[in-house]
């Protein structure tokens, strides 16, 4: 089966995020008030052929650990959606 997968890579808590801080400072100037805790990450989407959803998740988790995220500073969250739907 073909699964579409979303891997969200985000900085671990406590790791400084200069991009997030810059966005947070810019938003009030555009009239968006009350925004806090802005963090910038990466979203990696792909399709993968696997026997079942659990296998697709395992495969994507392994990709995240080995390549997509740097575990020293980043966490990765894997979401698997069957079929052609977008997660």
């Amino acid at each position: 089966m073909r699964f579409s997968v979303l891997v969200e890579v985000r900085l671990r808590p406590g790791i400084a995020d200069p991009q997030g801080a810059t966005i947070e400072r810019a938003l009030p100037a555009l009239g968006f008030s009350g925004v806090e805790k802005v963090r910038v990450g990466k979203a990696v989407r792909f399709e993968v052929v696997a026997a079942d959803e659990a296998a697709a998740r395992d495969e994507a988790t392994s990709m995240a650990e080995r390549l997509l995220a740097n575990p020293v500073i980043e966490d990765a969250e894997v979401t698997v959606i069957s079929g052609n739907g977008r997660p």
Partner: protein
Amino acid sequence: MSTRVGVVVFPGSNCEHDVAHAVEQLGGEAELVFHDQDRLGRLDAVVLPGGFAHGDYLRPGALARFSPVMAAVTRFAAEGGPVVGICNGFQVLTEAGLLPGALQKNAGLRFLCTTVQVAVCSTKSVLTGGAQPQAVLELPVNHFEGNYTCDPATLEMLRAQDRIVLRYVENPNGSVDDIAGVSNEAGNVVGLMPHPERACDALTGGTDGAVLLRSRLSSAASAAGALIRTG
């Protein structure tokens, strides 16, 4: 017999000739080693130079660490061979797990191209063995992702084991504890963001980098001597 230094070339490296030139000026012999080689041959030291290996796509060093040559560099390092990563080379060494921590985007979100002062904080590494403790060197920096980051436990370990080899006098990029360079526990693997190879000739703006590269050459020579003696 002069010291043979392998300079690793990834697709996108751009400081390999600067390093080779500096090594030869200091009396060593430089050999370019390509990323797809899985053996190093007879080398006394290895340098991972600056640049943008594999375009720095995904993260700096993230793809380079899977190059065949990195398996050979890892074996060389495990046998005690001197390995120095400069700038992008430092990023590759952290991604490969040969050095702790990671290099994030600069705190100011600007690419830095300037000359900075760095203080020699440990002389136990192959790169700083010939430098005076606390000496202040003027070296060029040229990076967007040089903001050294590690967790508090790792920082404590680096301090306790005297592995912070260089610190910025004025922190240009937000690095934790002003760190400009670190070593592994044995001191034979060192990574630093400044470019000593670009400060080896008065003609191009200074010679403060020479003391570092000369340290590496002499430590490589003594490591080679030790191998010959024991082998």
